[in-house]
């Protein structure tokens, strides 16, 4: 099975970041890490590919930097990577990102595309579905378990109550939640071999696309300080207030 995994390099969330004052866009450091969400996608892809003697191709978009994040995914065992790095894609919206990824995926060929449900830096959470639409294949989302083979893929789709079992014919796009599988740690050998694996860097013109970015960050506000909690004094009827609060947050 030919598996494509969408993977993104992001700045290490543990280190301080800066926004450009005029565009409000993130200043990208040279050193970026593999988005933690994508470790699950890569692991899932590797397991499915290994079971079917297939391959895993990473597809990424964003400033390549020193490729540390991509190398991390290759060190886990992916076979090769294609990254689209083009200044004209700065501040790209979800649809533009999906168009670029879909174009690369088409070029590479695929039976199954795996992506995380959403990135840790952007959080739009819509790219996998858009990619599926653009590729004209089914989107199976929020997978907590995935099995594939014999031309079809089956997932457990996480719901508020539990999970639905969803099945589709291949080719298809699956978005996986954190915890779908336990990501492996790259081995020493894997890290050394990753250096030699093919990584192709493309520009937008290589893909014959013209980006049409319609999203603009208008302003950025600091997140509101956490408000002090409510203290309920128990005068014998406090349970009523607690029930009311629980109903309000829809847990009962």
């Amino acid at each position, binding site marked *: 099975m030919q598996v494509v995994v969408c993977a993104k390099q992001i700045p290490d969330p543990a280190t301080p970041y800066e926004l450009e004052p005029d565009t409000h866009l993130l200043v990208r450091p040279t050193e970026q890490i593999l988005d933690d969400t994508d470790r699950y996608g890569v692991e899932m892809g590797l397991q499915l590919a290994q079971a079917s003697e297939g391959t895993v191709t990473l597809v990424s978009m964003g400033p390549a930097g*020193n490729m*540390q994040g991509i190398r991390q995914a290759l060190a886990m065992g992916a076979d090769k990577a294609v990254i689209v790095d083009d200044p004209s894609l700065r501040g790209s919206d979800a649809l533009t990102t999906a168009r670029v990824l879909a174009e690369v995926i088409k070029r590479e060929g695929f039976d199954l595309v795996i992506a995380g449900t959403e990135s840790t830096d952007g959080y739009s959470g819509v790219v996998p579905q858009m990619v599926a639409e653009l590729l004209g294949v089914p989107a199976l989302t929020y997978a907590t378990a995935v099995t594939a083979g014999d031309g079809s893929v089956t997932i457990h789709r996480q719901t508020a109550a539990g999970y639905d079992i969803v099945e589709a014919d291949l080719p298809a796009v699956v978005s996986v939640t954190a915890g779908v599988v336990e990501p492996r*740690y790259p081995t*020493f*050998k894997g*890290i*050394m071999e990753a250096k030699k694996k093919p990584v192709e860097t493309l520009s937008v013109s290589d893909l014959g696309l013209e980006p049409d970015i319609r999203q603009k960050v208008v302003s950025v506000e600091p997140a509101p300080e956490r408000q002090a909690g409510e203290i309920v004094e128990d005068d014998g009827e406090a349970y009523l207030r607690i029930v009311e609060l629980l109903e309000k947050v829809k847990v009962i």
Partner: protein
Amino acid sequence: MADYIAPVADIDFTLNQIVELDDVSKLDGFQHLDQDTIRGLISEAGRFYSEVIAPLNRVGDQQGSVLQPDGTVKTPDGFKEAYEKYVEAGWAAAHIPETYGGGGLPYTVGIVFQEMFKSANMAFSLCPLLTQAAIEALIAHGSDEQRDTYLGKLVTGEWTGTMCLTEPEAGSDVGALRTKAVRQPDGTYRLTGTKIFITWGEHDMAENIIHLVLARTPGSAPGTKGISMFIVPKYLLDDDGNPTIRNDVNVVSLEHKLGIHASPTCVLSFGDGGDGAVGYLIGEEQRGMRYMFTMMNTARLGVGIEGLAISEASFQKALAYAQERRQGRAIGAPVTETSPIVEHPDVRRMLLTMKAYIEAMRGLLYTTAKEVDLSRHADTEDERTRAGEIVALLTPVAKAWCTDRGVEMASLGIQIHGGMGYIEETGAPQHFRDSRIAPIYEGTNGIQAIDLVLRKLPMRDGEVVKELFAEIGRTAAELEAHDDFARFRTELSAGLQALAEASEWLGRRLEAGEYNEALAGATPYLEMFGTVTGGWIMAKSALAARQLLDAGGGDDAFLRAKLATARFYGEQLLPKATALLPAITAGTSTLYQADPAALGP
């Protein structure tokens, strides 16, 4: 917060700006290792130690390794599984030469891995550390057949190793050991005797344990000259090469220790059940002690790293606590607010003291490790010899100075927590307890000081020491170009002058044959030596940070912090060095003035 986060940026700065690892990477055999590759390896290894090994530190302390009624030793929950992952990931083999199935990384990078493992979980790290020593012994002195038989699985970590030296009456004085080895007609030996303090001497994480045992053959010379070294596997290999035949090596008991509870410290009995445990001689008879010396520098550096590693782990906890804990109001803070304790000057002082010593230790240890690499791989014989001399000189300093600092820093880590620091839940007390063994094992710090004064100071008629001092002097001179380093320069020069004076005084005592006069000052001398070489490292750090700041484009906040800790060291910690001169040059005068009986109650 996480139990431990690998300080990758600090490690990277030390490797590339202070130690200049490029000098090693450009040598034959290491040329595939560019900075990005090494950085990638360190950050992935760091993630592994932080996420897989560090969470087991507490449980290891609480449960400890426990001797079972059937004579096996059960390691704390999670250790076996984590060790399996460690072996699978291949970290065990990373810095072993490729010829023996390792990853072929420089020793300097290996020492970085050791630091991270030890910060994450010192007790756990001792198992691979001892295995490493066994590997080095076999590489250096084993026969081809012995290497073929044992190295493969020791290198991957599937088997582990031990070093069996100490006996009840033979501790620091190894030459007094009595374990007996008798040659059999088939060329193998039978060993009988008891060894104590055997680290990871028995456990459930590996399918076989290869003990390297020092023992005496009949008629051998007395003292260290008559000692031989043997391979004594827990399981002997059957005809198919599988470890299935149980050898007569058994755990009698485990020690109850102040710290490193997860590390089983065994009393091992050899040949209790009859004819003796089967052993195979390494090299020749009566050369065992000489073989031990080949591993001594790296083993001692491996323990020196523990001083650094514990300080780092302890510092991370203390810093997080100081930033979060609010208590009292710092001068100048709004009246309505309590301040995080990090705002109080005394807490700042403690944190800066920890951070500055940590940076100095890291620089000193990595510098020594780099010289180990150069002593093995430099292009010319001359360079290799020169590097070997620096290793010999700096090893006792790195071992003793860093492990003494480790205990002090772990104690400061507790102090920063206030009353909570005395409570086990914070984890701070465990670091303190764990740290306390490092000044004792692998040659007590007192012995390191003797080694420095009696063996290292006189190397090449004192020229080796003088060359290092000249090098430190050159770095001190470089500080001159910067106004804000003026005091640092004054202190470094003063420290260096005191160190030179102390060295000369000791040299004269040795020439006059007044050994006890020299040894009386050995420990303060080592401390002065460490404090001044630490100052040299921090001067390099300051110069590098200044240069990168001036060049621009770096992480300014990080570099400014480097300047601050370097200056703090130079201006406030380094001055302690000169104050040690009277103690070093006092000789035995007061030490032996009073009858020990008169000192008692």
